[in-house]
């Protein structure tokens, strides 16, 4: 392969094929890694990629894997993740990751091949209405029917994916457009007249917010994924604003890492499986400052009992988030980093109200030690496994992804984050199977780092084949499976809601994960005794290659504490489920 065939660009109006336009535009956008799977309708783009040394293409085993890998890449770098797939099944297999990225506001650009324009609408081989299918689950999408529009469209897609409230953008490119010759235009000056996200907060709103903050006796910061999405500077600003105000901080699942978990004013995660102190602080506060979070139902619990005595400041870049679920007294439509910096400036050297009583109250809640769990007693408690994993990896350059379920919540409770972009999980959509391919994407972005997918034995089997991707591309991800042989969270809900009738939640015929790892060319480890756990984890960390760790844990452990469905923040179940926590209304919820 001759790597030197293409002369360097001098002008921005070169003629090239559509496929070359795609690659040139990706390069100009700074794409260094992409995830994809070839097929008939993207062959010209793959041909252009063949002689392109500056973009690393990670070949996945299923298109869904490419999408989640791109998400993992995006969440861990702050850059847009890029996926390239073919038409028809290639595109439909991307629907889950696209929806996942939409729900969690992850910047992603998905390029799909399409049948040639003259065949569109004829039910051609591997044809599907990609823009129709992805219209409601992507931030925006395009079908490019003229090669002259292609370069501009790609640049516009990156602009839309990465600015405002980030999200996935789909570009559907018919095969004839990939072959056609057209003009390349650079990204300079690309804009979209109808697309103008508001990033600067209004002076008036900031002033109003500061007035409330100065008077607050029981304030709390409730922060979310918006702080992470705004970039590391927003996390810095949050820390700075917290330092000058002294207000305690809680965060959503998506926002973990924006504020250091080791800080004395950190309350832990809030919500359904959040901490007792965080949820009680939310319920009893007199001022809630929501930064880049959206009052998700997993956070609020019962709406009409949600933080009844507080004024609410809501900072969000998406105006539709304001007043969607909870009415804001002071809406601030802005980028969270910009808003936080404006608040720091307006706060100046103000002395906050005496918060001693409030913090003493928080300490009383904290003293309930809500994440405590029983002794191992010869078995490995899942919480203990996460705790040991944390202790043995916290001083390393570690990134964590998860699947969805009990293990995800235990990871959020017992693994602690000091920095943003270190925690990748599917929050909004709750996609089982997210974690393994996400780890592939994270590892591709951070080849030297320790990347661990904290998994459950059920979730991990959903997109398991990406283990092969990890082996091929020498991505030494560690898959740490809390294996309790149950679909644990569903089992827990059946215990709570359905009289312990465990309908189809026990996985019989689980694979031998050690042999499975070996079959793929990785290392398999297993552990079923707490005394051996540390040594096995060390072994996993030390191994230079993908590892599947089958950690056999207590089978029927429940994930607690928990706000039962339909209950308020101050009605948490702490350590025991009796079966009558949830009333009739709550039973109907998900």
């Amino acid at each position, binding site marked *: 392969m001759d790597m030197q065939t293409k002369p360097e660009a001098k002008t921005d109006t070169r003629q090239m094929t559509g496929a070359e336009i795609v690659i040139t535009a990706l390069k100009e956008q700074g794409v260094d890694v992409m995830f994809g799977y070839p097929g008939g309708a993207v062959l010209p783009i793959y041909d252009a990629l063949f002689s392109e040394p500056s973009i690393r293409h990670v070949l996945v085993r299923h298109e869904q894997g490419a999408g989640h890998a791109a998400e993992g890449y995006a969440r861990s770098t702050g850059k847009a993740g890029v996926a390239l797939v073919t038409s028809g099944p290639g595109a439909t297999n991307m629907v889950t990751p696209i929806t996942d990225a939409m729900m969690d506001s992850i910047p992603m650009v998905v390029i799909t091949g399409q049948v040639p324009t003259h065949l569109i609408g004829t039910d051609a081989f591997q044809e599907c209405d990609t*823009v*129709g299918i992805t*219209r*409601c689950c992507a*931030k*925006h*999408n395009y*079908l490019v029917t003229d090669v002259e529009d292609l370069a501009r469209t790609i640049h516009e897609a990156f602009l*839309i994916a990465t600015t405002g409230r980030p999200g996935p953008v789909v570009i559907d490119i018919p095969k004839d457009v990939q072959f056609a010759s057209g003009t390349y235009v650079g990204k300079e000056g690309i804009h*979209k*007249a*109808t*697309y103008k996200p508001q990033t600067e907060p209004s002076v008036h709103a900031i002033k109003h917010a500061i007035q409330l903050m100065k008077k607050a006796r029981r304030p709390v910061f409730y922060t979310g994924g918006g702080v992470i999405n705004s970039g590391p500077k927003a996390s810095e600003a949050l820390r700075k604003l917290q330092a000058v105000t002294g207000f305690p901080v809680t965060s959503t699942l998506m926002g973990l890492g924006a504020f250091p978990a080791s800080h004395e004013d950190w309350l832990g995660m809030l919500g359904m499986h959040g901490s007792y102190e965080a949820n009680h602080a939310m319920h009893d506060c007199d001022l809630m400052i929501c930064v880049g979070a959206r009052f*998700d*139902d997993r956070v*609020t*619990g*019962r*709406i*009409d*009992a949600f933080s009844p005595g507080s004024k609410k400041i809501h900072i969000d870049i*998406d*105006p*539709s988030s*304001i*007043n*969607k*679920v909870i009415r804001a007294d002071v809406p601030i439509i802005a980028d969270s980093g910009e808003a936080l910096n404006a608040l720091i400036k307006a706060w100046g050297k103000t002395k906050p109200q005496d918060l001693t009583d409030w913090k003493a109250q928080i300490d009383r809640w904290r003293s309930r030690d809500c994440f405590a769990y029983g002794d191992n007693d010869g078995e490995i408690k899942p919480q203990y496994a996460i705790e040991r994993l944390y202790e043995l990896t916290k001083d390393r350059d570690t990134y964590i992804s998860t699947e969805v379920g009990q293990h995800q919540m235990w990871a959020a409770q017992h693994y602690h984050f000091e920095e943003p972009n270190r925690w990748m999980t599917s929050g909004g959509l709750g996609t089982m199977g997210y974690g393994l391919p996400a780890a592939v994407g994270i590892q591709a972005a951070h080849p030297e780092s320790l990347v661990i997918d904290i998994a459950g034995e059920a979730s991990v089997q959903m997109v398991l084949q990406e283990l092969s991707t990890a082996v091929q591309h020498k991505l030494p991800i560690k898959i740490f499976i809390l294996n309790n042989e149950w679909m644990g969270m569903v089992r827990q809900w059946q215990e709570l809601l359905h009289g312990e009738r465990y309908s189809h939640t026990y996985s019989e015929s689980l694979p031998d994960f050690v042999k499975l790892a070996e079959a793929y060319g990785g290392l398999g480890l297993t552990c079923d005794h707490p005394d051996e756990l540390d040594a096995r984890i060390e072994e996993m960390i030390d191994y230079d290659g993908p590892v599947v760790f089958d950690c056999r844990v207590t089978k029927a452990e429940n994930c607690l504490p928990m706000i039962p*469905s*339909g*209950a308020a923040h101050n009605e948490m179940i702490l350590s025991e489920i009796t079966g009558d926590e949830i*009333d*009739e*209304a*709550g039973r*109907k*919820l*998900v």
Partner: protein
Amino acid sequence: MSDNPASAYDMSHVEESEERRTLAVIVDNEPGVLGRVVGLFSARGYNIESLTVAEVDRDRHRSRITIVTAGTAHTLEQIEAQLLRLVPVANVTDITKSKRGLERELALIKVAGEGEKRVEALRISEIFRARVIDTTNKSFIFELTGASDKIDQFCALMEPLGLVEVSRTGVLSIKRGAEKG
């Protein structure tokens, strides 16, 4: 339901009255834009009572979509915000709320009948200032412009006189006065 506690999923305890609103949505006239708008309404469970669309600025490729919807104040606020989230939506104007709104609808109404009924249909059409745009020995097609309730009323009067079918444009709207938008 009212005795049970509400939750994030159950907003039915909120007894709010519904209002009818006419929204003017200016969009980039690009393929699929109407699908985005309609898809948003169905995906989020909003009502569409009527919808019209046509390009209104050829140079800037802008189309005007007029949507008549109904919802609580909270829902209507969300509809506007959600519409503005769509990338090709340039702006949304609540024509009803502005109190300066003008609304008109055009209808084509086919009425068939003979004898007295036919004469009566023609007589009523004159009262409503409808135009006859097609006629046979047994039928008329009337063209009628006006507020939607005027067209409703006309159709109701034609019903016993041999109303065959109705075609309506849906509501068009614009604000009074010299200013744009």
